[in-house]
């Protein structure tokens, strides 16, 4: 009977510890690029199972090692077969190199692969250690505490909502502690522990856990002291995130992706070159496609048939971007695609002609995307397009109700599940404005304000019943272009303004400039390089009489479209962005600025540069006394105080948790230095020994006589030394005899020594 009980409670303990460990591992699949719950689930489960079965070390090593290899292959080498030497070699090299890096203490430079490897090894070690933790109640407390600490830090410092996990871990942890205590009591083997006792005990565990939860739920809680995540943590990590890329900040790689149905999560930087463009116009946004249907999670397409774009191609007829009376300038551009490029045919402005050598072109009417029949990446394409200049007074003249039916149908769509607070916000932002342009600019201003932070990392993914826009606008307030552009489109649509979401690439990095004489006319052409990091999304708003006007809601990006103000008759271009400290850096200026610094050998791509600017701007707006240039972090004493405070708190907690150990160590050392010479020193030694025993978990209750206690001790340490020693002590404290003979002293010292010796083993 006791054996089956032991097995049942053993299984129960491991199940509960699995639940706790799983709750701690789950955030990894949400916050990092290791987004496979199944892999982690199986890994933790199998590791713990092996630990439970207590298999021989080599089996444990083989199985866990195999699982680690499989997981690493799954996450990083899926393009190669599992049984190939290549990736193993790469893996070996990477581990070797990073071990060196780690040795140098350069933690930020570690590769994702290495960090993942270490994570798995750590999980393995935790499962192995679990056996030890579960065998003694005190030891499990450490794991329990660390699990809660880890979850609460994740909850406070990231966007992971660990609330439910914490509740689960608390309940499971309390249950583990209760079961462990029960096993401990059984071990002592009191025959009065009956079935009734067991059911009472477990009922008590349930009641206590329930009471703990109830108090936790009902009890008063102070309001959040920090924004989520704490802003000082943010700066802290900005300082650190300059190093290539951190696995913990990365959700997916930046780049052009066809599928936008589920947006969200962090982005990792990738500067693979996709194409270069030589254009006669200014650096523009290169659009690839637009999307109309917002689903609450991302953007979808309507299914519409492709139409052939036969020569002569008149895009103007098929896709009307601008009304005919918008001032335009004719430009040309040539794209040269690299091997890494996906199948895309970017264009800009009002496309009038596109040619791809040897391919017939088709147009997806729903998205405005241009495709070839083969749908394979092409080496090169040429376009001719019109670059518009929008008249702001004319934009301001637009009244509601002038939109064509087709536009209203397509570009006012919203999911029915869109939270009301989004609509309310849209109305609040636009209500005071009299015209569509000012309304759009109000939304742009709102999104570019310091309420929101531009960042590609630590961006949360909306949970299953969360709206992507709602999450960004009201909860996370941190994100990148997709967040800003989608939010703007949805806000405008909520306010009744037709808008669409456009994706493509930002202008790219300036490369060089050349002058060419074409048809006797001097033409200046500028070359830009576009990489994955230039992938971008923005918003176009429909203005009857002008057409689709580009707006840029993402901070740190400038609107490439040109606008003309009425007061300024020259068509001086001014960005529609309202960055106060950016002045009016039009594209030419930007180009020349970049021209002035061509000598920089490791010129980072423009997106990264812009990102740097973004964080600058954020810092400036967030706090005026912060450093003006670059992400150099001056010592923030709050951070230092916070770290020092938490370190000392952790130290105190650690000391308190391990007090039995170090106190016992202290008394043991004292015991060894004690020699019994007379009744006084005997008394000191005996009392000291009682303290040690109490700290070792063999405490004496007040109503227990010394002899009863000594018998308990002797049962635990197996022997009769304590009883013999106690008899001497009894005769000292209960009789009138106070002197010790030489033989007795010798005997007493021997007994004390052997008890201490037994405690050590």
């Amino acid at each position, binding site marked *: 009977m006791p054996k089956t009980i032991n097995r049942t409670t053993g299984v129960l303990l491991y199940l509960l510890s699995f639940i706790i460990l799983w709750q701690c591992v789950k955030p990894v699949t949400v916050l990092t690029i290791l987004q496979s719950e199944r892999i982690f689930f199986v890994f933790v489960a199998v590791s713990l199972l092996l630990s439970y079965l207590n298999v021989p070390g080599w089996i444990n090593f083989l199985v866990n090692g195999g699982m680690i290899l499989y997981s690493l292959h799954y996450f990083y080498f899926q393009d190669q077969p599992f049984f190939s030497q290549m990736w193993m070699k790469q893996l070996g090299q990477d581990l070797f190199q990073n071990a060196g890096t780690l040795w140098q203490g350069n933690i930020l430079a570690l590769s994702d692969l290495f960090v993942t490897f270490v994570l798995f090894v750590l999980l393995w070690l935790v499962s192995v250690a679990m056996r030890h933790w579960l065998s003694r109640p005190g030891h499990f407390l450490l794991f329990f505490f660390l699990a809660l600490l880890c979850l609460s830090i994740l909850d406070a410092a990231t966007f992971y909502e660990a609330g439910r996990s914490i509740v689960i871990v608390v309940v499971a942890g309390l249950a583990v502690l209760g079961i462990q205590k029960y096993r401990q009591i059984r071990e002592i083997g009191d025959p009065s522990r009956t079935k009734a006792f067991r059911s009472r005990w477990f009922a008590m565990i349930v009641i206590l856990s329930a009471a703990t939860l109830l108090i936790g739920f009902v009890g008063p809680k102070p309001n959040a002291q920090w924004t989520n995540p704490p802003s000082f943590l943010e700066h802290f990590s900005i300082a650190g995130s300059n190093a290539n890329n951190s696995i913990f900040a990365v959700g997916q790689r930046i780049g052009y992706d066809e599928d936008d149905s589920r947006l969200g999560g962090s982005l990792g930087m990738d500067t693979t070159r996709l194409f270069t463009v030589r254009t006669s116009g200014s650096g523009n946004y290169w659009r690839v496609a637009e999307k109309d249907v917002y689903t609450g999670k991302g953007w979808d397409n309507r299914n519409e048939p492709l139409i052939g774009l036969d020569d002569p191609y008149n895009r103007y007829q098929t896709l009307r971007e601008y009304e005919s009376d918008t001032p335009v300038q004719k430009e040309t551009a040539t794209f040269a695609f690299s091997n890494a490029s996906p199948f895309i045919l970017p264009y800009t402005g009002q496309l009038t002609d596109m040619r791809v050598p040897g391919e017939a072109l088709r147009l997806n009417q729903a998205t405005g995307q241009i495709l070839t029949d083969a749908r394979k990446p092409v080496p090169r394409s040429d376009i001719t397009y019109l670059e518009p200049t929008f008249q702001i007074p004319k934009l301001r003249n637009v009244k509601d109700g002038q939109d064509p039916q087709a536009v209203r149908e397509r570009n006012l769509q919203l999911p029915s599940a869109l939270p009301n607070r989004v609509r309310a916000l849209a109305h609040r932002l636009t209500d005071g404005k009299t015209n569509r342009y000012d309304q759009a600019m109000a939304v742009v201003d709102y999104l570019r304000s310091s309420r929101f932070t531009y960042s590609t990392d630590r961006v949360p993914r909306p949970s299953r019943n969360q709206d992507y826009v709602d999450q960004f606008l009201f909860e996370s307030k941190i994100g990148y272009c997709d967040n800003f552009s989608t939010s703007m489109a949805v806000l405008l649509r909520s306010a009744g303004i037709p808008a669409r979401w456009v994706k493509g690439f930002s202008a790219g990095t300036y490369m060089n400039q050349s002058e060419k004489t074409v048809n006797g006319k001097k033409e200046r052409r500028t070359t830009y390089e576009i990489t994955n990091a230039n992938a971008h999304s923005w918003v176009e708003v429909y203005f009857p009489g002008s057409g689709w006007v580009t707006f840029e809601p993402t901070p740190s990006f400038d609107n490439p479209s040109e606008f003309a103000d009425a007061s300024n008759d020259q068509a001086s271009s001014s960005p529609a962005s309202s960055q106060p400290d950016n002045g009016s850096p039009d594209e030419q200026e930007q180009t020349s600025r970049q021209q002035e610094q061509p000598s920089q050998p490791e010129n980072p791509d423009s997106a990264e540069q812009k990102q740097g600017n973004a964080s600058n701007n954020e810092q400036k707006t967030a706090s005026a006394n912060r450093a003006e240039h670059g992400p150099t972090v001056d010592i923030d004493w709050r951070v230092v105080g916070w770290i020092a405070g938490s370190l000392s708190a952790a130290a105190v907690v650690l000391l308190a948790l391990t007090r039995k150990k170090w106190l016992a160590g202290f008394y043991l050392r004292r015991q060894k230095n004690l020699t019994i010479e007379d009744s006084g020193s005997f008394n000191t030694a005996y*009392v000291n020994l009682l303290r040690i025993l109490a700290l070792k978990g063999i405490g004496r209750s007040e*109503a227990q*006589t010394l002899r009863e206690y000594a018998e308990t001790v002797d049962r635990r340490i197996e022997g009769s030394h304590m009883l013999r020693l106690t008899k001497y002590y009894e005769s000292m404290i*209960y009789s009138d005899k106070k002197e010790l003979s030489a033989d007795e002293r010798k005997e007493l010292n021997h007994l004390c020594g052997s008890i201490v010796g037994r405690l050590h083993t």
Partner: protein
Amino acid sequence: MNHDRAHQLVSNMIDNVETVVVGKRKVIKWITVALLAGGHVLIEDIPGVGKTLLVRAIAKSIGADFKRIQFTPDLLPSDLTGVSIYNQKEARFEFRPGPLMGNIILADEINRTSPKTQSALLEGMAERHVTVDGTSRALPELFFVMATQNPIEYEGTYVLPEAQLDRFLLKLSMGYPARKDEFDMMNRATGRDPLDDLRSVLTVDDVLRLQHEVRSVFVSDSIKNYLLDIVTATRKHPMIYLGVSPRGTLGLLQAVQALAFVEQRDFVVPDDVKAIAPYVLCHRIVMKQEASYANLTASDAVAEILSQIKVPVLNKESIQ
């Protein structure tokens, strides 16, 4: 008599009695404690568990005079104490001592007789003399009463009043022997009286000297305070109507001294107190009516008190 010899005598006696009364070492020990403390014992148990055998074995071991009185409802006090009979030849009254005049007396089924007779016995137990025909007659110096009462019969019994129960130092119950001991017992049943082979290992004088020795067993102040803590707790316990009297306190002190002596020590340790206290205290406590609803007996209350009272442990003099 030196300590070692005294301790040797006690353990000899216990061993000797145990050869006859199998597997009842504990009860023998308690009875020895009562004998050495100069108290009396009340055994509450069913007939046939060896009460008489036990007492006779003890009596024979110390070579003492043994008397057995079967209490019946028609028993008169004079049947115990003895009567004066007119001797016609010498023309005067001559005292014929009753069974109470022995050294060791077994008073069987004490609750069957009338209170009048009971009180005659109890007077003798307390006062060490009896009064017959206006003459006070001293009982022998070694006077040890072991009374029994049958707990399962209520019809036709006179329950001993609390004041009289107080006169017994210990109240014990024999209990059934263990299965193994009962098995041995069957093997030994040869038809001969087992007491015939029992020799006496000490004399009445020895016992009297031992009784004197017991009085000198050292009881430290901390132990005395511990005793008082326990006794006071019985007076304060919420379920106890009547706590232990000062006579009980003295009895407990004598009992722990005797126990320490039986355990071959010349000082008392708290374990002695814990071991003997239930037998000394339980029959001196009257529980409240509520206690019976909660199924709480006097021995439960005493056990609870013993598990709560702080045991004196540290030598305060050498620890600041």
